[in-house]
């Protein structure tokens, strides 16, 4: 730099020189700005949506305060609104869905990347992607006419027989239930968790696999010690992505969960979710307070989704690489 300015360069020429240097730097800056704007736009959008929901429910928030989250009466006629059963229903149905979908998805992903014979991989992947393409409402119909009758016939009675001693599988079996809702959500989030997990497992360096195989690991052992434990963080991310979907899943759940605002220990009992009540009741909300309460339901749902994601990220940060060592034992 100094050498350049030491030499006498006429002003016009010098500005030409700086102009020659500037385009690339301008490109960098522009790109940086663009990406920053995009990232900020997402945040702004979320805040905007949140703010609108908050605005739309300000009267209800003022009237019910915290009771909205902690009481269970949902009576539009008496204008008594408590969202606890919906919060409970959303969380429990999503939890059931995760319990079913996560092991299945990760096992499928591991099978697809590590174990399956080559010729079977692509057809299986296409099949799973097709599952993701089924419209929610169709899946709901299938749930009503195929899944629920079948569940009522075989799995539910079996569950009752073997696990009836726990509070979760007691009481009458209707069919539409929290458990059916959880299962249908599991079906819905299975493809996304599977395909994200599959990408993550595929990104594990081959050198890791070779390290395991060279020690005489079997396929399963190599998958466990070299692939799954290496990819653990990414897999956790895939699960969180699935959870986000599960919390907001609406149509199919609405069709099979029974839509009864109650908190029952038994998973055979019907339930209700935040998303379902919004979808079901918005058209029939006649009074201002009713609409306000539904807006607040939306606000709570958004809040839960964001909260869950933040918690997950916190958790992810605390998972230290070394803590995975237990995978070996």
């Amino acid at each position, binding site marked *: 730099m100094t050498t350049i300015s030491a030499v006498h360069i006429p002003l016009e020429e010098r500005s030409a020189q700086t102009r020659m240097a500037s385009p690339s730097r301008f490109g960098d800056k522009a790109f940086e700005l663009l990406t920053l704007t995009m990232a900020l736009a997402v945040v702004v959008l979320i805040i905007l949506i949140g703010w609108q929901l908050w605005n739309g429910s300000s009267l209800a928030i003022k009237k019910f305060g915290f009771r909205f989250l902690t009481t269970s009466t949902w009576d539009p006629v008496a204008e008594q609104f408590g969202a606890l059963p919906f919060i409970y229903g959303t969380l429990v149905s999503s939890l059931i869905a995760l319990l079913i979908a996560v092991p299945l998805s990760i096992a499928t992903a591991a099978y697809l990347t590590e174990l399956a014979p*080559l010729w079977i991989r692509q057809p299986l992947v296409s099949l799973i992607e097709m599952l993701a393409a089924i419209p929610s409402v169709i899946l709901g119909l299938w749930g009503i006419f195929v899944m629920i009758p079948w569940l009522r016939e075989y799995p539910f009675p079996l569950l009752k027989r073997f696990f009836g001693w726990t509070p979760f599988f007691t009481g009458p079996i209707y069919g539409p239930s929290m458990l059916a809702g959880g299962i249908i959500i599991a079906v819905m989030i299975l493809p996304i968790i599977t395909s994200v997990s599959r990408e993550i497992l595929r990104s594990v*360096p*081959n*050198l*890791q*696999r*070779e*390290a*395991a*195989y*060279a*020690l*005489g*690991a*079997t396929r399963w*052992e190599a998958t466990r*010690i*070299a692939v799954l*434990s*290496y990819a*653990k963080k990414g897999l956790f991310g895939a699960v969180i992505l699935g959870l986000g979907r599960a919390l907001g899943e609406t149509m199919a759940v609405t069709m099979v969960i029974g839509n009864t605002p109650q908190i029952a220990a038994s998973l055979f009992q019907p339930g209700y979710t935040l998303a379902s009540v919004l979808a079901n009741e918005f058209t029939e909300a006649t009074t201002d307070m009713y609409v306000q309460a539904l807006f607040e339901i939306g606000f709570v749902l958004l809040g839960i989704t964001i909260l869950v994601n933040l918690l997950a990220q916190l958790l992810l940060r605390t998972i230290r*690489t*070394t803590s*995975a*060592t237990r*995978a*070996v*034992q």
Partner: protein
Amino acid sequence: MDNLVMTTPERSVMDRVDRPAEPIPADEAVPACTLRIKDLSIWYGDKRAIDNVTLDIASNAVTAIIGPSGCGKSTFIRSLNRMHELVPKTRVEGTVLLQGEDLYSSNVDPAIVRRRVGMVFQKSNPFPTMSIGENVIIGLRLNGVRNQKFLNERLERSLRMAALWDEVKDDLHKPGTSLSGGQQQRLCIARALAVEPEVLLMDEPCSALDPIATAKIEELIYELKTTYTIVTVTHNMQQAGRISDYTAFFYLGRLIEFGPTTKIFTNPSERQTEDYITGRFG
């Protein structure tokens, strides 16, 4: 030697601990050869990467594989513990005898082959989710060894053999990836040694290391050959000259010349070998 198929992994490992050295069967010629490769050809799909190679690898010696890039060194060395099978659509013809047993006969489990023929790679690859200690004993764990005392003893011994013990003995719980590149490579050697293989394969083990780390590994290889049969690939002629007892020169998938390193380097009988060693091509 135990049969490849019948041996349970744990047994074979335990057995080899008690036995100080492999007894040399009387009917084998001197020098004893741990590995005998006969008429070996390997294909990737339609492409033949190894072409009819016949070679005996002497026990307790270092055999260096040299040759220009793409001549099939890695393919050859990986075929000695069936690692090349991880690449789909490979095909093998010929035999590889490990202590007289064919690695490629149909009833042999490749996992057991790899327990007896260990491998170290060009790029160090410790398991990042495991501590230094666990990286070393993972092979034994896979073999079903649970005895903590045995594991600890073997941990220390393997790390000492890999000349790493003094540097890491207080940090055994730290992640394997927290070490320097050269240390990581020695960790990988320790990991391979922990299961007490009969043969140790090394595919350019020093090519990613600085001269000091390289010198350490070379010294290590020199010491290890008293206990192990070592096959190593190298691009470095000086290195091959320093550490190996035998040298095999490959060119375009063929074995051009094989013999004692001193002979190959001072008086090669093939023109191509001489050209390669003197740096005229390759």
